[in-house]
């Protein structure tokens, strides 16, 4: 008996966004990366195209990540004081598709690093690796607004993915992207309506930016409200496939950042005997969070633990295998 396979016909597809720029394209990257472009729900190759695999970016900081749990720090050996070496290790040894450079040191409460300091670090990292870069500020609005312009200018043409534009504060990032040919992370606080509106606001500044936006729906960690993010992503993606072009952007999730501050990643087993070994549990917390988000349509995962990265890359390999009937 031949079962009649059910294939949905969608009206539309996810926009394809290119990250990074090679020499010919005005940058210095040895490779560029494409994300998005799918015309079906996650990994349903049997009914639509999934032209680009989801990618994994690994986080690199401009300062030593003091607050990370010991087992996470240990996984990197002695490179955590040197962003360039750290980035290189992520790419060469751990297989990172991109580097997400976070300027934690720019935080007025950390080192209050200046735009020039950040640019120096950025240049070193650009030199050390050939993959495209994501750039995050320190998370403090005023400071980030002050440094994002100069950073964008210093890397003109590299097509960095610049973080983060928010509803109340999108102009400085979007302007930097517009002026210096970068892409933008549009971040909304677990709110699909704001996610959509923000894309419209950005596109009103410049229509071509529509194809250079990546949505950060704000993800929550496993056990901390991840189901909200999961459902928002599923709704956005379903809407996008059904023709909602203002939600049809690829999505990025700050997995490592959310996960590694949670108790499950650092409480030792002797404090919570029911939770099992802390080292294994912590990286599983990160990889399972990422796994769930992939199933809701995540295109770029920003992660920390090399072993979790390895696991999720393997999971992606498997899920990218054709399952047509």
């Amino acid at each position, binding site marked *: 008996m031949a079962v009649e396979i059910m294939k949905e016909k969608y009206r539309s597809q996810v926009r394809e966004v290119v990250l990074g720029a090679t020499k010919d394209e005005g940058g210095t990257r040895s490779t560029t990366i494409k994300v998005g472009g799918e015309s079906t729900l996650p990994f349903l190759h049997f009914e639509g195209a999934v032209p680009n695999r989801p990618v994994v970016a690994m986080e690199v900081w401009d300062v030593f990540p003091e607050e990370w749990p010991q087992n996470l720090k240990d996984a990197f050996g002695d490179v955590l004081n040197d962003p360039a070496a750290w980035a290189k290790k992520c790419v060469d040894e751990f297989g990172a598709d991109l580097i997400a450079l976070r300027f934690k040191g720019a935080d007025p409460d950390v080192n209050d690093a200046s735009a020039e300091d950040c640019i120096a670090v950025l240049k070193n990292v650009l030199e050390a690796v050939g993959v495209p870069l994501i750039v995050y500020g320190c998370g403090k609005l005023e400071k980030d607004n002050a440094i994002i312009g100069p950073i964008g200018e210093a890397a003109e043409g590299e097509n960095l993915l610049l973080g983060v534009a928010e509803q109340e504060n999108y102009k400085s990032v979007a302007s930097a992207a517009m002026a210096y040919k970068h892409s933008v992370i549009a971040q909304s606080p677990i709110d699909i309506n704001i996610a959509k509106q923000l894309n*419209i606001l950005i596109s009103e500044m410049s229509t071509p930016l529509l194809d250079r936006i990546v949505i950060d729906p704000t993800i929550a960690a496993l056990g901390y409200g991840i189901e909200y993010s999961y459902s928002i992503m599923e709704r956005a993606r379903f809407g996008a496939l059904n023709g909602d072009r203002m939600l049809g952007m690829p999505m990025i999730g700050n997995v490592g950042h959310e996960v590694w501050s949670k108790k499950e990643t650092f409480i030792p087993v002797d404090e919570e005997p029911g939770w099992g070994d802390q080292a294994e549990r912590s990286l599983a917390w990160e990889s399972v969070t990422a796994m769930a988000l992939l199933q809701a349509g995540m295109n770029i995962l920003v992660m920390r633990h090399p072993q979790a990265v390895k696991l999720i890359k393997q999971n992606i390999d498997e899920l990218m295998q054709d399952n047509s009937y």
Partner: protein
Amino acid sequence: MIIIGERINGMFRDIAKAIREKDPTAVQEWARKQEAMGSGYLDINVGPAVSDRVSAMRWLCEVAQEASKLPLCLDSTDYDAIEAGLEVCKQPAMINSVPAVQEKMDRVFQMASKYNAEVIGLAMNEEGIPKDAESRVALAMELVANCDAHGIPISNLYIDPLVLPCNVGQDHGPEVMETLRQIKLLSDPPPKTVVGLSNISQGTKDRDLINRIFAVMAMANGLDAAIADGCDEELIAAVATARIILNMDIYCDSYVDVFKNQNL
């Protein structure tokens, strides 16, 4: 609700002139304009302009497609003209329309299956338009059963419950609403529904207001599409709003613009 832009119709003077003089300018202008304002299809109707409806239809389809990427809705009672149009359509089109009359259904559903076209079926037969919902639905059911018998997915069928002007057939109003609701019970997946929106306001004074209110009421009862003035800003805003309230689009503050710009 999808708007089937009604403006390319030989009833209008500029289109009639275009057809007679084979000057595509007006046709293409309207094609572009309706697309830019969010129409989902372009209705193509030769109207009374010329006697050779077959070649006029073919020409209209060709020139409209040069200006717009929207699918076409071929509007004629002359099935040869429709077939001529279907032959030149670059993507699946919609046939407008067929009543629940057996020999007509045979011809139209055969064409639809050959050209992979959608079909508008009218809830009427030789005896005309019934008044009560039950009889309208029975005719709709005949259309559904015939569509199914030709192996055409029911979701490619649009049923038009047929609207009468509210100043003549006021008592039809509630029946039309009820018909729209019941059509959704006919099959799973159900057929879609469509109305000729301006029929409701023929001969009345404030036509735009009546059209607009009728559109949102019908949407609440399950209306999927309307042949309407795709350039009526207030109608479009009302439709966009109804789509939000019915949870068909995801809200954002600029939802009206998003709806309008969906073809850009």
